[in-house]
Structure formats: structure tokens, C-alpha cells
């Protein structure tokens, strides 16, 4: 088994989380500034201030409420301790094996086998599994799936992944608004093309608006794929055997696509939807199984 330094992994994830927040904030402020300059005129400062406050609220809110948002978007329910005894017991055992606090446990109503973890740190983490996961997997396979999700929590992947989901969504929205309003103002003959300065700013603005969401999304996908391998190997580290997770992944092979919002798709254990190869959030199952077999 390839030895991964988990502390190194965690440190990198924390740094890239902050880096991501910084970059997104910078992109946002540039966008807001450009929008204000191009469209605003007399309301320039009003738009800038309003836009800045809005972005900050969104980022801070996304950071603190990301788990709630993810849970709400798949309309999951809390898993009660008496009804889902085995689910609770397995998570408690794995928490003992990993030294993590017990996350809040949720259930989502779906017959496919899938699960995800979210939250900003291990103290505020949630795990959600589908009802299909509990019905179709054996105890050992369920343990493998939950160990994989707990690894995402232990490696601080949840913070990074949930943040990207929130922030990428926001950049996409603002870019859309900008492009549309630009289109609208060019029809009504706004003052946007009055001088050279403005024209340059406008080109930068358009380029940003078009490229930012694509670049951020591609980076997110590449990182997300790498993280799945890391989480698979830490799951083996917790359980000391790859059998359970391997069995679960083999069963997931027979999943049919699920209907979930694109923003939460990268959080899942296995990709919930069918996508083109280069837009995949997860490495192919066969590769993951092959890696586990070598451990």
C-alpha cells in the first residue's frame, strides 16, 4: 500500500481551502467592480458596496451553513438512534478507530447506493446515506462506505469540497447576471462603449465572466477525483481491510443515475449522475476497485 502522509494531506487541504476563498473573493470583487463601472454610472459606489456585502455574506454563510444546505438540497432526514441502530453503531466504532467526534447522521430516501459527508470541520460534520445503502449492503460493506465518508471528514475534504460547491455556484450566478445585463445594456444603448478604458474593462469583465466558472469547475473536478483515492486508502487504514469497501463499490456498479443538484454531486461516494469523462467528479469505479485490491 502506498503510504500517504495524512497530516500533510490535511494541511494541504486547509491551505487550499483558504486559498480558494481568497481567489473566489478576489474574482468576485473584480467582477462586482467591473459590473459597477460598466453599468453603474451614478450608482457606481452603491453597486460596489452592495455587491461586496452580498458576496461576503454569501461566502461566510456558505462556510458556516454548508452542511445544512447540502442536507436540505437532498431533503434528508435525521437518522434516529433507535430505528437505525446499526448505522449509529458502525459510525461510533469507526469514530473510535479514527479518533474523530461522532458526526450527525442523516438518511435520504433513495433506492440507489450512495452516501456523502459535509460540514466545515470534524466537529460540525454530517454524514448522509441513502435508504438503498442501508438495505442493499452487508454490514461489512456499509462499514466500508461509512469509513470512506469518515475519511473525507478526517482529511478535511468536506470543508474544501463543500466550499467549492458553494463558491462555484456563486461565481456561475454572478457571471450569468453580468453577461445578461451587459447584453441588455448594449441593446438599450448604455454608456458602456463611451471610452477606451471602459472597453478594456468590459473585455476583462466578459473574459472573467466566461472563463471563471469553467476554470474553477475543472480545478474542482481534478481535485475531487484525487481525493476519492485518498479517502479510499484512509478507509482501509481505519478498517484494516479493503474487503468491505470493495464489495460496496462492486454493488454500486449497478446503480442507476440519481436526481441530485450538480452542486452537491462531487460530495457523493460514487458519482450520482452520468457525465462525460472529462467532467467526472469521481475516478471510474473499476480503477478504484483495482487500487483497493492491491492494498
Amino acid at each position: 500500500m502506498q503510504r500517504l502522509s495524512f497530516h500533510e494531506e490535511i494541511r494541504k487541504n486547509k491551505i487550499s481551502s483558504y486559498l480558494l476563498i481568497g481567489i473566489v473573493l478576489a474574482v468576485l470583487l473584480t467582477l462586482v467592480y467591473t459590473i459597477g463601472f460598466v453599468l453603474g454610472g451614478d450608482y457606481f459606489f452603491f453597486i460596489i458596496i452592495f455587491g461586496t456585502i452580498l458576496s461576503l455574506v454569501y461566502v461566510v454563510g456558505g462556510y458556516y451553513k454548508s452542511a445544512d444546505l447540502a442536507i436540505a438540497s437532498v431533503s434528508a432526514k435525521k437518522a434516529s438512534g433507535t430505528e437505525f441502530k446499526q448505522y449509529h453503531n458502525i459510525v461510533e466504532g469507526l469514530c473510535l478507530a479514527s479518533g474523530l467526534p461522532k458526526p450527525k447522521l442523516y438518511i435520504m430516501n433513495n433506492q440507489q447506493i450512495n452516501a456523502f459527508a459535509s460540514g466545515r470541520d470534524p466537529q460540525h460534520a454530517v454524514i448522509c446515506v441513502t435508504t438503498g445503502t442501508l438495505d442493499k449492503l452487508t454490514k461489512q460493506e456499509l462499514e466500508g462506505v461509512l469509513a470512506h465518508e469518515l475519511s473525507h471528514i478526517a482529511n478535511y475534504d468536506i470543508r474544501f469540497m463543500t466550499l467549492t460547491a458553494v463558491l462555484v455556484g456563486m461565481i456561475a450566478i454572478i457571471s450569468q447576471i453580468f453577461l445578461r445585463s451587459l447584453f441588455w445594456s448594449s441593446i438599450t444603448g448604455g454608456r458602456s462603449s463611451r471610452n477606451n478604458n471602459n472597453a478594456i474593462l468590459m473585455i476583462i469583465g466578459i473574459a472573467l465572466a466566461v472563463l471563471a466558472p469553467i476554470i474553477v469547475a475543472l480545478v474542482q473536478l481534478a481535485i475531487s477525483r484525487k481525493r476519492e483515492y485518498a479517502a479510499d486508502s484512509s478507509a482501509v487504514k481505519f478498517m484494516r481491510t479493503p474487503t468491505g469497501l470493495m464489495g460496496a463499490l462492486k454493488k454500486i456498479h449497478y446503480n442507476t443515475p440519481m436526481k441530485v443538484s450538480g452542486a452537491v454531486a462531487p460530495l457523493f461516494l460514487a458519482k450520482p449522475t452520468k457525465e462525460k469523462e472529462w467532467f467526472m467528479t469521481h475516478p471510474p469505479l473499476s480503477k478504484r476497485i483495482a487500487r483497493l485490491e492491491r492494498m
Partner: protein
Amino acid sequence: MVAIQIWIAIASATVAGVFILYYNRFVRLTHQIDNSLAQINVQLKKRSDLIPNLLSAVKGYMKHEKKIITEITNARKALVSAKGIEDKMKAGNQMQSALKSIFAIAEGYPDLKANTNFLQLQQELSAIEDKVAYARQYYNDGIMSYNVMTNMVPGKWFATMYGFKKREYLKIPEAAKVVPKIEF
């Protein structure tokens, strides 16, 4: 001249930083190990608390299985009175094997197997068995990182200086490692 003083200040700050870093690392690992030991104890305690319930659940059915009942009662007594972690683990393993035989015997009592109270206890006890194993694994992981640090340079020098000594792994008793013999 000023430049030299600045360099000296930087160098001594770095050295002090390394000393503090290593001390804190040792302290953090010691706490982690102590905490995981406490977790093992919590699980062992939970298990011994469930035993009276289990005994009262099976009593009505297993009137002729006196031997196994006393075995469990003794294991529980040993666990409650055990002091050190080694003794506790030993008593815990003794209880584990007693529980295994009681569940094996229960297979021969269809009424008992249909008893929801008994089934719940069985499930609970097997979950605790898993948790004990996981807690022990985490404890030994902690010991491993601690021992690696106290044995490797430069951690070794700091360990000697601060008085942190090598610690022992929790071993599985010899009896538990032997594959049970099947006799007919």
C-alpha cells in the same frame, strides 16, 4: 553589527521553536493515547453493565446451562475488580469468549432466539465487541506514532531530555489468538 544581532535573534528563536514544537508533539500524543485508553474502558464498562440484563433474559430458558452462566458471572466479577488495563483487557477477553459460547448455546433454544429483548442485547453486545476492537486499534496506532517519535532522531534526543519513555502496545492474550478447535 546590528545584522549579526538580528541573525542571532532569529537563530535562537528557531531553536526555541523546535524545542517547543517537539514538547507539544509529545504532549499531544500522550493525551491521545490516554484518551483512547479511556475509550476502551468506557466500552468494557458498558459491556459489563449489560451482562445482568442478558443473564435475566436467558435465565428462564437456559435452566440447565449452569456452567456457562457462572462463567459469565465470574468474567464480569473479574472485569469489575480488574485494576490495570492489561488485567481489564484479559477479563474483557474472558467475557468475550463466555459471551460467544452463550450465543452459540442460544442457537439451540428457538424461543430464546425469537425473544426481542435477547436479540437486542445480542446486537448491542456484538456492536460493543467491534468498538472495543476499534478502540484498541486506535490506542495501538497512538502508541506506534509515539514510539516512532521517541526512537527516531531527533525525536529521540528530545524524548530523553523531556523524560518521555517508550510505551507498550496492548497485546491480544495468547488464548484469544488460538484458532478454536472444533470437536465432535
